[in-house]
């Protein structure tokens, strides 16, 4: 995985290392999402810096309320009112073209969304208009973007077939006539009908059973290959995405805590939160005596703690952590953790998953 590299970006020079990649298709720098509320400003994305590498699958993992859905919306400049998005989001359809996403005109933004960067939401049924057939959704999307409808429907059929669905039956149905798995797959097809480069998926499998989750992940892998997609897969379920993603980015309290190659993050997590997260999930078959819930609760977006936002829950917290927010530090090439003590976390938060790492999960889709 030599596609990641330490940056010499000037933005990163003030001692801050930014988790960059070699050929980013999306680049976020100093991105904030804020909501003004009665009791103060709610910062649901806090100074986020990250790259999304072209044609990778990036798994974004976080607890609910960590800001991961906002992160998804930020990628399409689709933060809902009254939220405000600031900072820099750069989209590179090819390595030499920079598009400043937050500076686009309405019509260019309309083109960016769905034609370049598309999104699949949690809860597929609520993503479809209940009184419009699935075909209607495809047609109206094609028309709205001035695509050739007949050609587009051909592509829709192919996509539906790629997703092991019967195109005629699905197109003629209404969302409520389909099962959860079918709806989710139909929604994926809808999100790809304008041939976007990037697919952002926000908890796309949350409402599905385990079997369907896995079959959707394997289909996603096939689609990514076939259509050269870049996928940002957002989930609370680390083990689910660990076997699928090339890289993992762990979110805690509206920021990224750790970013790195998936295998390395799972086997050798450097941030105490990532390790705690890995220990709290049963799916990785870690010994039961080592399994533990993360103590404490997730921070409040209005009143985030001083210093490292994880310090109230962190067993390694020192004075330094309480005062200053830790910058990203390089653990290994391409592997970053925002923690002062990342070198000692392995000892402090131990667990043993050698034989259960993603590589060993070949039976996974």
């Amino acid at each position: 995985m030599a596609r990641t590299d330490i940056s010499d970006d000037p933005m990163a020079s003030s001692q801050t290392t930014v988790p960059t990649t070699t050929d980013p298709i999306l680049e976020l720098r100093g991105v904030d999402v804020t909501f003004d509320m009665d009791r103060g400003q709610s910062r649901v994305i806090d100074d986020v810096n990250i790259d999304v590498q072209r044609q990778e699958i990036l798994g974004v993992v976080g607890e609910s309320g960590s800001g991961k859905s906002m992160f998804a919306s930020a990628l399409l400049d689709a933060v809902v009112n009254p939220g405000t998005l600031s900072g820099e989001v750069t989209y590179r359809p090819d390595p030499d073209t920079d598009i400043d996403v937050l500076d686009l005109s309405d019509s260019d933004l309309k083109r960016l969304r769905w034609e370049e960067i598309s999104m699949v939401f949690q809860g597929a049924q609520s993503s479809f208009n209940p009184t419009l057939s699935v075909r209607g959704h495809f047609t109206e999307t094609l028309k709205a973007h001035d695509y050739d409808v007949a050609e587009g429907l051909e592509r829709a059929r192919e996509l539906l077939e790629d997703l092991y669905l019967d195109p005629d039956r699905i197109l003629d149905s209404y969302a409520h006539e389909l099962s959860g798995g079918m709806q989710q797959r139909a929604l994926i097809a809808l999100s790809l009908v304008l041939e976007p480069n990037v697919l952002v998926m926000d908890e796309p499998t949350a409402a599905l059973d385990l079997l369907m989750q896995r079959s959707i992940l394997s289909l996603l892998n096939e689609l990514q290959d076939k259509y050269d997609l870049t996928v940002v897969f957002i989930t609370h379920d680390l083990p689910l995405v660990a076997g699928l993603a090339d890289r993992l980015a762990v979110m805690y309290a509206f920021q990224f805590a750790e970013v790195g190659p998936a295998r390395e993050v799972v086997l050798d997590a450097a941030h105490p939160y990532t390790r705690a997260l890995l220990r709290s999930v049963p799916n990785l078959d870690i010994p039961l005596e080592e399994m533990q819930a993360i103590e404490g609760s997730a921070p409040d977006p209005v009143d985030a703690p001083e210093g490292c936002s994880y310090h109230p829950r962190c067993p390694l917290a020192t004075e330094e952590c309480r005062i200053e927010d830790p910058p990203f530090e390089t653990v290994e090439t391409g592997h970053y953790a925002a923690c002062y003590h990342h070198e000692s976390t392995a000892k402090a938060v131990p667990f043993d998953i050698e034989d259960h790492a993603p590589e060993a999960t070949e039976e996974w889709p």
Partner: protein
Amino acid sequence: MTSTRYYTKRLGQSVVTVFAVVTLSFVLIRLMPGGPVDYLRAQYIQQNLSPEEVQEKIALYTNIRTDETILEQYVGYMTSLAQFDLGRSIFYDRSVSAILGEAIPWTVLYMSIALCLMFVIGVSLGAFMAYREGSYFDTLSTLTAIVANSVPYYIAAILLVYALGFELSVLPTSGRMNPDTVVGMNVQFVLGVFAHAALPVLSLVVTGFGGKAITMRGNAISELGEDYLRVARLRGLSERRIALRYVARNAILPMYTGMMISIGTMFGGSVILEMIFAYPGVGYYVFKSISARDYPLMMGGFILITVAVVIGVLIADLTYGKLDPRAGGESDEAF
């Protein structure tokens, strides 16, 4: 097929309902103290008619043969009913079907105008309120709508007759056409008809649009909060398409049933209104028949009101599933 079976079943239910209501009215009329037969008999005896003549006249007017058992009478009444023979009006001395048949178009005329206006005004106002939820416009309109909706239409009717009819004399207060005009397709006549319909229409619309507006507002607000609206915007659909094909359509559909039922209840709702405006439509004759103890006409009016409601509900039931795929009922959900 399931849907055919459903239609047949629903149609059967409606026939049974009408049948039951007619039977009930038939029985009730015979249970009423001083029922029509006694009333007629007393009248004819006063006119010094012979008992045979009395019997004959009673039979002619009411389809009731007093010398038969109640069961035979019932069968007889139902048989003539099946031939659309509703008997003869005592008060007007004309066949009930002729009276009602002539009155129906007038009631339908102003009622459909009123229902259309009520619906159009209510729906558009409600949609605007939803789009400006929380604004002064919304608050003010909600207040107006609630106040207007709480006024009974007959109170509004009396106030309107007083204000627009007597005080300002801008609209006629009674009748259904201008007596000086020639009946037919000429401007004077048509204008007269609309002028006479204006006050009844106005009283219904003023007191009726508020309810529709508030329902529409609520439906539209919940539509506006739906996830699929957000997805539709991200997919690049125009605000116009979203407003019409998403918000408006999905918010109006649940109101469709109510709309069909109000069409069904238009004759029932016309009784007091037509009395106030002395507007000779169905309600006017029903009211007259009650005060004049004109039982055959009363019976005919009741049957008409019942049948209209039953048909309205039936149409609503049978067509709603076609319009709103969410209401598929027996949908073949696949897993």
